[in-house]
């Protein structure tokens, strides 16, 4: 039976691992994984684990009620734009951050800051979130 790439991603996430792909043609990383290299389009790929460490470039917040009912209890939540140390850009929930304007202004004024993965479970699905370190 073929394995779903998407299912495998979430299973890895549940184990605390961030697994994407490395292209065997151009060496480019794709995260989260798909069927093709996002740099060159090749489908010759091998698994690649990412550290989960990166830099939080921007953090703001979303709205409540959340469009996706999975997040009804969490919304509104802090959401960030992150560059992983391997160079990939990802966006996700930021844990441990207050979203009032004064708190967000202080974070903005500090500039980019180090984060690491903080995988949380929301309604039985592991979610890639980050926390400031």
């Amino acid at each position, binding site marked *: 039976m073929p394995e779903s790439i*998407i299912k495998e*991603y979430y299973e890895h996430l549940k184990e605390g691992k961030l697994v994407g792909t490395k292209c065997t043609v151009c060496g480019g990383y794709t995260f*989260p994984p*798909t069927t093709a290299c996002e740099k060159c389009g090749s489908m010759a790929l091998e698994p690649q684990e990412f550290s989960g460490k990166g830099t939080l*470039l*921007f953090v*703001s*917040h*979303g*709205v409540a*009620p*959340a*469009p*996706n*009912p*999975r*997040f009804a209890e*969490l919304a509104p*939540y802090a*959401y960030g*734009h992150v*560059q992983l140390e391997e160079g990939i*850009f*990802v*966006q*996700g*929930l930021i844990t441990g951050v207050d*979203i009032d*304007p004064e708190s*967000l*202004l202080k974070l*903005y004024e500090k*500039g980019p800051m180090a984060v690491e993965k903080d995988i949380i479970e*929301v309604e039985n*699905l592991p*979610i*890639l*979130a980050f926390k400031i370190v």
Partner: protein
Amino acid sequence: MEGKFREPVYILGAGCTRFGNLMETPELKGLTLQELAAQAVKEALADSKTSPDEIDAVIIGNVTMQTSNLPATYSQLSKWLGMEMKAGVHIDAGCSTTNVGVSMAAMSVASGVYRKVLVVGLESTSSRPSKLSPYERETIPTEEMWLWTDYCINQAYGVPQGYDIFPVYNGFLALGYCRKYGYSIEDFDRSMFELCKTRRLHASMNKKAINQEKLEDEATRMGYSDPYEFWQSPYNPFLSWPSRLRSAVVPADGASALVISCKEEAEKYDGLPIELSGFGISIGDLPWYGSDPTIQNYDVASFKKAYKMADIQPSDIDYLHVHDCSHISSICTAELSGYLPQGEGLEYVKDGRLRFDGDRPMSTHGGRHAFGHAWAASAGADTYEAMKQMRGIAGDRQIPKTPHTSVIHTHGYGMISTVLVLKGGK
């Protein structure tokens, strides 16, 4: 890619309904989507002096079928538009739908296959058929509309892991712009207030806009003598700090239609045909940008393709509309287009230079916030406004120096970036 039309292509006529709410707005109340689309088509056919039998093909767009219950829109509307026995197709390119339809129609005309093609976009973002009724509708909660709209967004990893359009399209761009160009958050907020004033001024002169009330008048109505105090009040909360509610899209119901024609048919037309001299289309997926949220690379690609095809430079542009579901996104895109200098967009806003009577007029219909946004219909409404301006018939909001080259940019969720270059007019 050849990147050129083999024959010139024209937009002969356009139609657009009032943008509003099918449950409330006087001009729309009680209409079905079939009737709404027919309103826009009737105007476009009359404007282009085209009889239904002259149309060879119909391209009809609709995005959220949960609110229309009209899959196979080509056949479901064919009798309503007088288009049976034509070639037809339903397309969905998110909020770029109508202008992608225009580009597809243009290629079919330039190839010599068709002589005239009708492009239609229709959408309801506020209600859906009630209990499968053929004509009764019920209001939908805003979050449900966004859930359905977010079906256009990465369903493998984005949406399941908490994707939210407001930080991704508003907050991060605002912070990225301020950090890149050294604006304070306070400066940013004041500029967004001024931009909202401009868009609301434009819509106050447009009988088809969803919100025809100037921001200053709304402030007075709400008991504020200082409009900026109203801007910063709880009536205008942060959707995604530092971006506020009145810097964002206002969902609407509406329809638009355009008649695309070959040169020979345009020469028979005694009105003012507008030449579609180039287009650019580029797609991408999340994340929409890297370390600099002010640059979205599919936009860079679309502008480059369209300018090359139309053989224009940014300095040739007389009128610009860029997708403005997020006002700060529209400033970033206008700078990317070359119409505004990099990092100076907020200054242009504060100086009133983006007003219809300024030297860099933009979005004179009111844009996504004040004209309203009916997903599949909006790109056509943007083109409709450009044609009005180029023909010199935009009424009180007419740009004093009639534009001869207009550029229309749209973002279709998420993303399909489109750029049309229009030439001609009065």
